């Protein structure tokens, strides 16, 4: 793995005191690597923006410390950190032209006028707004302002670029465009991006690694595929994509493997390495698209069997709700390929196929 750029060590942050005390971050530790697109994902109030503002220097940590390339940042004010931010509201200076906005940071570093202007042109080309240098921000559309905010933050070549939900104000189409754009900028500049969002799709599309946060804690850190395929917590599985949750008891299948026995008596085999220490009731998750349906007659022993309760046709795929009995419902999403798969009707008895590696036992 490449070098660590930002390292948060047991960082805590509380606001207010006494009865009004709010814990925004609770003992968070994370390493962010060189040239990485790192995303902090979570619902509002999970502490992701607070962590970003701590890295930027806009807030002071209550406990723990944040290191930049091994050096503690603690009391360094924002203007002394080689870290720049793209703000949610863009925060472009309305009294300056686009070019002056971009050269602002360079000027503060004492870069000569000519060089700063050259750099501004370079940045304008990078964000594909080469003709817009002489305009003022109010003459630009939201998407254009967004790009200028990026150009401004990238111009001083920071070690780390912080992005605070920068796409949330854009409409869907523009947001998709900017996702690609951001990924391209990150690759081209080689700067570490730390991105904050509550949009799981955005996070999956752009990130090298994602930290899923909840109530001031990081629940899971991993590559998008890992987060999606192997969620460790119910919250993670639920927040990112759709998931089925089944409750059962951990048992040994006799052949030295672990399995989960559901309330109805069916047993689901596991390939996941579950500690032998664990026993008793657990929750497992499985993605709807990782499940398949077969006619009941084709169902093997120990296979889950249920009744189709709802069929929803989506064009590219069809979603079935399967009643397993004992109040257990499973959602199954099947692609409508050309290889005419069997259609299942409401009320039909079906067997459910699943590969053991798509079953994840979640942490308590």
């Amino acid at each position: 793995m490449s070098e660590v750029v930002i390292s948060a060590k047991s960082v805590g942050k509380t606001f207010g005191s006494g009865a009004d005390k709010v814990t925004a971050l609770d003992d968070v530790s994370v390493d962010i690597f060189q040239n990485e697109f790192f995303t902090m994902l979570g619902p509002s109030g999970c502490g992701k923006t607070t962590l970003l503002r701590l890295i930027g220097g806009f807030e002071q940590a209550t406990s723990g410390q944040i290191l930049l390339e091994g050096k503690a940042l603690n009391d360094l004010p924002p203007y002394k950190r080689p870290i720049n931010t793209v703000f949610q509201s863009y925060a472009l200076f309305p009294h300056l032209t686009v070019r002056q906005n971009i050269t602002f940071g360079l000027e503060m570093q004492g870069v000569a006028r000519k060089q700063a202007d050259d750099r501004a042109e370079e940045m304008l080309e990078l964000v594909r707004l080469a003709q817009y240098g002489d305009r003022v921000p109010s003459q630009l559309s939201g998407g254009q302002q967004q790009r200028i905010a990026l150009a401004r933050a990238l111009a001083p070549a920071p070690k780390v670029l912080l992005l605070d939900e920068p796409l949330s104000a854009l409409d869907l189409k523009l947001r998709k465009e900017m996702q690609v754009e951001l990924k391209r900028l990150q690759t081209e500049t080689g700067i570490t991006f730390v991105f904050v969002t509550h949009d799981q799709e955005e996070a999956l599309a752009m990130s090298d690694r994602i930290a899923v946060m909840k109530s001031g804690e990081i629940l899971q850190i991993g590559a998008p595929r890992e987060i999606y395929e192997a969620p460790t917590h119910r919250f993670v599985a639920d927040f990112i994509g759709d998931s089925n949750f089944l409750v059962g008891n951990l048992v040994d299948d006799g052949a030295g493997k672990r399995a989960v026995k559901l309330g109805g008596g069916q047993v689901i085999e596991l390939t996941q390495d579950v500690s032998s220490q664990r026993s008793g009731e657990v929750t497992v998750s499985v993605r709807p698209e990782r499940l398949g349906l077969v006619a009941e007659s084709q169902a093997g022993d120990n296979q889950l069997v249920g009744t189709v309760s709802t069929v929803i046709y989506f064009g590219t795929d069809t979603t079935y709700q399967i009643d397993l009995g004992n109040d257990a419902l499973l959602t199954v999403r099947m692609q409508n390929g050309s290889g005419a798969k069997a259609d299942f009707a409401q009320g039909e008895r079906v067997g459910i196929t699943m590969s053991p590696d798509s079953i994840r036992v979640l942490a308590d």
Partner: protein
Amino acid sequence: MGNIIRSKRFWLVAPAVVYIGFFMAVPLLQMAYVSMLERGDYGGVNWGVFSMDAYISFIFERDLMDNLVVNTDYLQIFARSFGLSAMTTVFALLLGFPTAFYISTQPQSRRNFLIFLVTIPFWTNILVRNYAWMLLLRNGGLIDGALNWMGIETGGLDVLYTPYAVSIGLTYTYLPFMVLPIYASLEKLDHRLVEAAFDLGADKRRAMSRVILPLAAPGIAAGCILVFIPCLGAYVTPELLGGGKFMMIANLIGSQFGAARNWPLGAGLGFVLLALVLISMMVYSFKFKSLPEESR
């Protein structure tokens, strides 16, 4: 439909238009007329006898040979008034900006209270407040006494009845007019812009000079106008704190209608002042038209 409603709405402003139109425009025209008449020997004017003497005598006087020679007395009073008003505006700005900035950084509930405090002096009559300043500034007065008590021998402060006393009094009187518009523009200022400046490497001083001050400029300009123009027309303060020894434009105009019995000159001086004020306003609006829209 919309047009009918819009045209009917005109009647909402009609009373104000009539009131101002009549009670401001008519006397103004009357004064313009008076300024172009011959003065009456015992005050008043000779109605119907036109003369440009008032405007000529602003700059020239007639010597014994009836030749026009330059007389700078009135010009000096004008220059002095402009200088003193400018000085007062600078003082008010130096005191007012930090005050407004401090208030704008306070929590909302506190801000309202502090703004309320700024407006408290308006509750007292301006004459009373100026007399109070006389008590403060005079030799042996409160300030002089306090300094002496602290062991600083002033030998009499000798401030009262000087331009400084007038400027102190004017600064005090018009300070709220500086604080309020600056506060209004600072309050609107998006705090994230200041954060963005910090983020891009600006320390506090440069965040102030490069972001906060330019964005507060319209408020600062409005404050300066609201202080500078009433200062030019100040009457009571120079009369009391300047002790009549120190004349400003308003006192000069007043004296022309009173003791000097030269109505046309008084009216003429009023119009010269009006012209100068209008010119400075035009310069202001021209300067701020060149700024980007959002910061206005």
